């Protein structure tokens, strides 16, 4: 079984078939194609997206449904093709695909999730894209804290 040294999880052992491929990479990381999804009991509901080529590259994601139930995902024919999904209908979240929002944790601002561009995974085929929802009004910096709590914290 392949093993991989990561910065945050130390040594990871994984099944070759559990590798998720991003054929197009992610914006800003176009050359990163192979990732693992890592979920730890301790850190649920966070799902880590760990690069298999760069030990230090690991994204924090959370299920979009957990942040904004009723989120409407729209994939273009091209995106459906990349994910090897039927091009004549939108996939059912939870059944055909998983969708995860990438979380930004920066010291100088409260945590936010990118709902403008969720990571969409066809888990049956282990193919994924980061799908920019061009015609939506979802924010790339959706706050993960309520406004009241932000006030209390500041």
């Amino acid at each position: 079984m392949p093993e991989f040294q990561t910065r945050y999880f130390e040594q990871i052992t994984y099944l070759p078939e559990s590798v998720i491929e991003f054929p197009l990479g992610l914006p800003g990381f176009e050359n990163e194609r192979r990732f693992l999804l890592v979920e730890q009991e301790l850190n649920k509901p966070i799902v880590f997206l760990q690069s298999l080529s760069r030990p230090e590259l690991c994204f924090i994601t959370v299920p979009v449904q957990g942040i904004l139930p009723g989120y409407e995902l729209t994939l273009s024919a091209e995106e459906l093709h990349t994910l090897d999904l039927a091009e004549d209908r939108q996939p059912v979240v939870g059944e055909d695909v998983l969708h995860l929002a990438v979380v930004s944790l920066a010291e100088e601002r409260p945590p936010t999730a990118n709902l403008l561009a969720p990571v969409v995974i066809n888990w049956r085929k282990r193919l994924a894209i980061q799908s920019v929802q061009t015609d939506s009004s979802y924010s790339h910096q959706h706050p993960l804290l309520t406004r009241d709590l932000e006030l209390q914290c500041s």
Partner: protein
Amino acid sequence: MLVIRRRVGQSVFIGEDVEIEILDAGPGKVKLGITAPREILVLRNEIRFTREENLVAAQGVTPEAVQNLVARIRSGASPVRGAGPNGNKLADGEILPESGP
């Protein structure tokens, strides 16, 4: 901000090398044709936002930051719930390998 009115078929130049032509315009939508040198990065704003956001997201992953976030989510400070029965369902042990030795 400079505001210029243009008709379909007209264009504007930015500097010497970048030309933006209005190819088509309809209600609420315009189609642009951009001619620029290869070294100039042309990005739709939402892709640029995502690119910048990904670069920030890739920086902040420290064990402390993760612990803080989890604590916030679990304390209810963040309106984040785990995926419900209709949410993202991860098949047990299928996608997610347990980490660590």
